[in-house]
């Protein structure tokens, strides 16, 4: 019982539930199933970006290029559509390959050139911005990819397709992190790269995998965002940089690496979306709303986020 109460993921989930219940009583529309479902849909995008971010952070890095990769994938999809590709599957695979490739390049810079992850991914984001100027506004193709459109709007059995995708990917990421050798190596690398290296963990390969996964997840998230918004635009990924980091940390993953779980990022993402929704319906000046938002995050963090004592 005590151990359970010390578990950050569980505490974060409890906090989310409490916020939902309280807000649901305060405003009837807030707690309705369609609204909860909508918040989960929004959270699924943050959650996917957060999945990659979690892996990278656990492996001792950080990915500041997630926003740019999300945008890149939304902008690249229309460019990759051909008439013979009626299902849109090739375009989807192409986008996922592209975003994974960007992640791998991050990994190469970090593992081979030993560039600090923050610098490498920040530089990558800058680099992609340049690329986006070239790509944006160049084509006049609307979203006509059936798969992505379906992902963004279908609700089979009253349950959104994007949430289902999120659930499936969450399962995969959790298994990857906690039940595969590669996942264990992410933890080892993040906890102590030197010890991991001397113990035979292939640091380069492991780093490469972490950033590749992050790129892939950003690609998926981009497709979801594209499907939900009906079209991509430059800047569509911007909100996901801070949101993904916040979700990871709110979920109890140590920003210093080596400790954490995607199980915490999941409620972390939902929590962020929930607070944002709450703040939107509050009638206040924009400044006051920001103050409220920050205070809420801080307050909820106090409930779930304490770190161990030194003595």
């Amino acid at each position, binding site marked *: 019982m005590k151990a359970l109460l010390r578990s950050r993921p569980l505490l974060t989930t409890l906090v989310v539930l409490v916020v939902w219940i309280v807000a649901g009583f305060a405003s009837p529309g807030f707690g309705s199933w369609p609204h909860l479902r909508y918040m989960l849909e929004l959270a699924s995008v943050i959650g996917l970006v957060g999945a990659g971010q979690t892996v990278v952070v656990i492996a001792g890095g950080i990915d500041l290029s997630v926003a740019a990769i999300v945008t890149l994938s939304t902008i690249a999809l229309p460019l990759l559509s051909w008439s013979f590709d009626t299902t849109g599957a090739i375009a989807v695979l192409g986008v996922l390959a592209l975003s994974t490739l960007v992640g791998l390049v991050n990994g190469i810079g970090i593992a081979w050139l030993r560039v600090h992850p923050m610098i490498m991914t920040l530089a990558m984001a800058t680099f992609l911005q340049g690329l986006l100027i070239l790509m944006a506004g160049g084509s006049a193709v609307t979203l006509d990819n059936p798969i992505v459109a379906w992902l963004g709007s279908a609700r089979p059995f009253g349950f959104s397709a994007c949430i289902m995708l999120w659930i499936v990917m969450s399962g995969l990421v959790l298994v990857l992190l906690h039940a595969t050798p590669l996942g264990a190596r992410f933890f080892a690398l993040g906890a102590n790269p030197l010890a991991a290296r001397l113990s035979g963990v292939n640091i380069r390969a492991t780093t490469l995998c972490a950033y590749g996964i992050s790129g892939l997840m950003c690609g998926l998230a981009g497709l979801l965002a594209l499907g939900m918004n009906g079209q991509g635009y430059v800047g569509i990924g911007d909100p996901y940089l801070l949101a993904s980091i916040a979700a990871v940390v709110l979920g109890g993953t140590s920003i210093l690496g080596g400790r954490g779980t995607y199980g915490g990022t999941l409620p972390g993402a939902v929590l962020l979306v929930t607070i944002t929704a709450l703040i939107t319906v509050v009638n206040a000046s924009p400044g006051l709303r*920001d103050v409220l938002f920050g205070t809420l995050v801080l307050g909820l963090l106090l409930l779930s986020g304490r770190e161990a004592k030194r003595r």
Partner: protein
Amino acid sequence: MMPSLYWQIQWRRNRRLTPLYGVVLLLLVVYGWLFPGLFSRAGLAHFTQSWFPLALVAMAQAILMLTGGISLAVGSLVSLGAVVAATTMGATGSLVSMLLVLAAGLATGAASGAIVALLRLPAIIVTLAGSFIIGGLALIILPRPGGMILPWLSAVLAGNNPTVLLGLLILLVLGWKFYLATPGGIALYAAGENPVAAYRSGIAVEATVIAAFAISGMLCTLAGLFVAAQTGSGDPVIGTTFTLNSIAAVVLGGVGFLGGEGTMRGALAGSLLLTVMINVMFFLGMPPVAQYIAQGIIIVVAVALPHLLGRRLAP
């Protein structure tokens, strides 16, 4: 005669930065060659003015990162500083207004530091929440750009004469050097790299962290004050881009993410690189696309250089 211990230590800490210094120097030379006016009084003044606020926030970020923290509230604090200066200066005069600006930074910094150190919450998320609170306050104080800064202050800080600004920068660097040579300054490094060792050695780890946050907050609002002076007015969102830029400058300058590693001169060199790069790219006539791509490449190369060189020199 052997240099004294202090200088030996200082000299040693320069070594890892040599490649970065090299890149910065190279860019400065290119800039001076493309724009000889740089060496005039006004040219130097304008360039220093471009660099100064980033230099300040880089220092602010570096102090925190040395103690193992990080701040995502740098941008909001800059905005707060600018807004406080621009709204109070008319009514209270420049001295009181400046004191208010510094006090605002000290207080908000110390408060964040207390939350991080005493409540044991991760700095990154505390300062993320803090950035909303502080940014919100700035918006409440001044919802739309406006306010004013006394013209003499603008003229002194951001006119055609670099003396005051350079003097201020030198003063800050000397202040930092002095602080770092005090027991409290060394404690920053110890608390950042190995808090348990620091605690066992009798260092007040929590107080050290809170002091770092307070100093950092003050440097940020000081940067805000300068930006207000430079622009003659206040803008509640002027600081936004400083957050990421400060982190980039500091990490470029070799300050480690895990605390206890790095130097202020590195952070300053990093910020100088980011600043001079923009001007060089302008004078080379690069279009925006090329600017972005070149910027990405320069940054990566500046950081990868030690490794690339090291591989050449390794046996």
